[in-house]
Every structure is written in C-alpha cells, then in structure tokens.
C-alpha cells in the first residue's frame, strides 16, 4: 500500500473527499426526489421515511437538494481554482523570469492590488453589470485566487531557477520558455497542487457566503449557502433545515484542507532534498 494513505490528514481528507464526490456523482443519476419539485402540502416537514431529512418551506426534499448542492460546490471549486491556477502560475512564472525588471514589478504590484479586493467585493462589482449569479460569483472568486497562486509560483520558480540543472539546460541550448515549461513547471506542480487544495476549500466557503447573501447561486439551482439563508427564516419552527447544509459545507471544506495539509507534509521531505 502506498505510504501516503497512512498519513492521518491525507487519509482522512481523501475519505471525506470521496464522500463528497460520491454524493455529487450519485446526484447525476439518482436523488430520492426531484430536488426542484415543490409540494406545498408537505412543506417544512421534519425527517421521515419519505423525506429522510425533511422538507423545506416549498416542500422540496432536503436530501435531494444537498446531493445536488455537492455538484454545485465542486463545480465552483474546480472553476475558481482553475482560473486562479492558470492565470496565477503563468503570471508568477513570467514575473520570476523577468525578476527585478519592470515586468516583474508591474505584474506583482497589479496582483497585490487585486488581492486587496476581498472576493465578496469583487463579486459585488461584477454583479452590478451582469446581475447576481453562480458564474459571476465563480469568476470573482477565481480572480481573487490569481494573486495567491502567482505569489507562490513566483517564489517557487525563483528557487528552482537557482539550481544547477537549470543552468545546464540553458547551456545545452534550450530557450528560456522551453526551460520554463519542461523543467520548472513540473518542479513547482506539487506546491501548486497543495495551494490548489487550500484554495478549493476557500472557494467553497466564499461561494456559500455569496449565495447566503443572495448574490451567488440563484434559485432553482440548489446551493448549500442559499439553503442556509432560507433555513434562517424558519429557525424557530424547523431548526433541522439549518443543520444539514452547513454540515455539508464544513465536511467539504475540511476534506480539502486536510488533503492540502497532508500533501504539504508528504511533499516536504522531497523539497528539502533539493
């Protein structure tokens, strides 16, 4: 067995993540009820054999909504991290390539500036144009992720560039871009994956906050954050509605945080050897 599975954080994170991905995949083929179907007669029902976790104020089945919500959350994380990773790594490596020169200074200053805008505020700026929605929320979170990845990529690239084998590759006649792609990129991938895991967790939390505020995912798409907003209205009469979506967010975020921590530990000895 691969020793990675024996690392407690990595193992626990992997198990929880399998759970979340399993729920998302399951929702593609099966949910106990149609998550969008409203049954006014069965509104705000407590858990029962028919509805395992009860129903919301429109009589929608909570289990079905939470399952479909997993799909929503994973999609958000994937796209927001993808945006941050692609642009962030490209810009960070570019800055490192021109270290100390104008491009480096300009790129990093611009990214520091982007970083000063909390994701919620970027989302608000974007939605004044296009209206509230999942896509805008994801773009805003992705934009916030760019400087995070860029700083890491720049620092990591500078570390790798100083190695002898990079000089050897340059002497062997490889162009700078070729060295970047063939030798540096593979060497910083591990670090980027670790950061990606952490940012994945951040993206899910940020989308949940935005949807809770009503400026993220819009109905009828089920979103855990949105479900918590709805649940708050009925907190005194139907408290069970406020438990499950929050638990789902917490489990997903925990999964990616643990996975990231585990990966960082597992990659660490190799980083020291270099």
């Amino acid at each position, binding site marked *: 067995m691969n020793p990675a599975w024996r690392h407690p954080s990595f193992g626990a994170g992997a198990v929880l993540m399998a759970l979340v991905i399993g729920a998302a995949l399951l929702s593609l083929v099966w949910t106990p009820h149609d998550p969008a179907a409203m049954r006014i007669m069965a509104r705000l029902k407590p858990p029962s054999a028919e509805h395992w976790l009860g129903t919301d104020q429109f009589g929608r089945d909570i289990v079905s909504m939470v399952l479909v919500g997993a799909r929503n959350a994973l999609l958000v994380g994937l796209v927001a991290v993808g945006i941050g990773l692609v642009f962030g790594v490209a810009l960070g490596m570019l800055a490192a390539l021109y270290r100390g020169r104008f491009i480096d200074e300009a790129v990093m200053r611009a990214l520091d500036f982007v970083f*000063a805008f909390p994701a919620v505020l970027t989302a608000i700026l974007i939605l004044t144009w296009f209206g509230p929605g999942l896509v805008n929320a994801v773009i805003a979170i992705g934009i916030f992720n760019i400087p995070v990845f860029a700083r890491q990529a720049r620092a990591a690239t500078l570390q790798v560039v100083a190695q002898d084998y990079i000089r050897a590759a340059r002497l062997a006649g490889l162009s700078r871009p070729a060295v970047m792609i063939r030798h540096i990129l593979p060497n910083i991938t591990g670090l980027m994956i670790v950061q990606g895991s952490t940012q994945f967790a951040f993206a899910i939390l940020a989308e949940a906050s935005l949807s809770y505020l009503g400026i993220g995912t819009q109905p009828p798409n089920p979103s855990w954050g949105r479900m918590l907003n709805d649940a708050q209205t009925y907190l005194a009469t139907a408290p069970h509605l406020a438990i499950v979506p929050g638990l789902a967010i917490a489990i997903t975020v925990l999964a990616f945080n643990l996975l990231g921590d585990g990966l960082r530990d597992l990659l660490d000895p190799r980083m020291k050897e270099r």
Partner: protein
Amino acid sequence: MALFLIKRLAGLVLTLLVAALVIFLVLEVLPGDPAAMMMGVSATPESVAALRAELGLDGPAATRFLDWLAGFFTGNLGLSYTYRVAVGGLIAERLAVTVPLSLLALGLSLVLGVTLGTWAAAHAHRRSDLVIMGLTQLGLAIPNFWFGILLVLVFAIGLGWFPAGGFPGWAADPSLSARALLLPAFALAMPQAASLARITRSTMLETLSEDYIRTARAKGLSRGQTIRRHALRNALIPVLTILGLQFSFLLAGTIVLENVFALPGLGRLLIQAIGGHDLILIKSLVLFYVATAIIVNAIVDLAYGIADPRLRVGRT
C-alpha cells in the same frame, strides 16, 4: 528611513487612487447610464433625466470622479438613490455598529488564537495539542455564518441569553446593544482564531527550539515563565503580520454576519443597496471597505519595516 516612509506613503496614495478609479469606472462609467440602471427598464426617459440631475450624474465623468474623491474629505458623497439621504451620513451612522463589531472580533480572535496556539506548542504532540489542532481544523472548515446561525439556535432561541438579531442602538440601550454584538463577534472571530492558533503554534515551536530559550531554562526559569517572558514576544511578530493580512477576511466577514444577525452596519447597508440597485451608495461603500483593507495592510507593512530594517529593501 525617511525615504522608505515617503516611498511607502506615495505607494499607498497611488494604490488608493487606482482603487477608487477602478470602482468608479466599473460602477458609473461602464454601465453607460447609471441613472437608467438604477431605475430599471420601465422608467420613462424624463424620469431618468430628472434622477440624473437630482443625483448630479449629468456632469462629465472626470468632474464627477474628482467630486467624489473630494467628498471623502468633505463628507459630501452625494445622495443615496434608495434612501434619498446623504451617503456620508448613512455611512457614519452605520460605522457605530461595524467598527465595534470588527474590533471585538479582532480582539477575541487574537486572545483565543494566541492562547490556544501557545498552549498547543507548550504541549506539542500530547493529547491537548491534538485536541486543539483538531478544533482549529473544524474552526477553519465551519462557515462563519453557519456558526452564527448555530449560536442563535442554541443561545438565543434555545437558552434565550442573547437576542437572535437586531440592534437597539447605543443611545437607546447600551447594554443590550453590547450583548447584541457578542454572538456575531464570536462567530466572526472563530475562523480567524483557528488560523491564528495554528500559526502561533508553529512559530512558537520554532522559537522554543532557539538557544536563548535553553539558556533561560538553564538559569532556572520555569517553562511557563520562559514562554511568557521570552518566547511569546518573539513568536508574536509573524502572528501580528498574519493578523494584518487577515483583516480583509474579517472585513468581508462583517458583511456576512451583519446580515445573519440583522445588525444595521455597513455590510447590511451594502446588501440592501445592491437589492435597490443604489449605485451611488454601493460605490462609496465598496471604496470604503477596499480602502480600509489597503490602509491596514500598509500600516502592518510599515510597522514590520520599522521593526526589521532588512525588510525595507523590498521584494526578494
């Protein structure tokens, strides 16, 4: 030193100006006609023109931008479209909730985070360390607004110790007002405290392996005395930097938690302004938040540069 200060200050002013310009372009120039956008599609051209005149949106963009910037010093930030009152007054009034809420949360997260982190480092790899580290993982994973809802469920609806939401106002009932801020501040502080505890633990562990700690122990100080007198001060410097960096998360958190607890602060005002398409109000509020985040980061940077001259050179 003077050159360092001037350079940093110039950089700060420039950053603030660019931030204001970006916000202004996004909210007032790029949408075309903000008056039409605020009134919606059903508005007649005459009423849109009237609103444009009323809100001072009919001048050239450059003049409006400069007027808006000047407004941050004179307090005249224009009229809110939805409230029809001065934006400057609205913001000032709401600060009485948001500022105490953020400071309370900041204080709570610092005290909780440093105490738990130090305890965990002092008992590294023992049971209490594992429990604290487990709790911090939960603290990082639980969304602050859900934690707020759970606190309401237990302490407001269940036990009735705190109000479930709302804010009577400092003048009307100071003690109830303070109590109304406790649960939201605690929910806001929780994720921050969790990450501060983790950082405190790791910097503290590093500090505790230093030679001067062994010297302090060798001269007869107890472990607790060594930590309090020698280790804590050194371990806290990186912790304070992280606290500064996290300030923008804290600020964003107030937006969410003011909405959970129906507190009449800036964050609730912002979400209401979005609901009412009140671009005039959104513009000043967003700049206010961003400027606060930028200024706090600059202060932390500056403090760090003054404390450690090696950091004045800039990026490495």
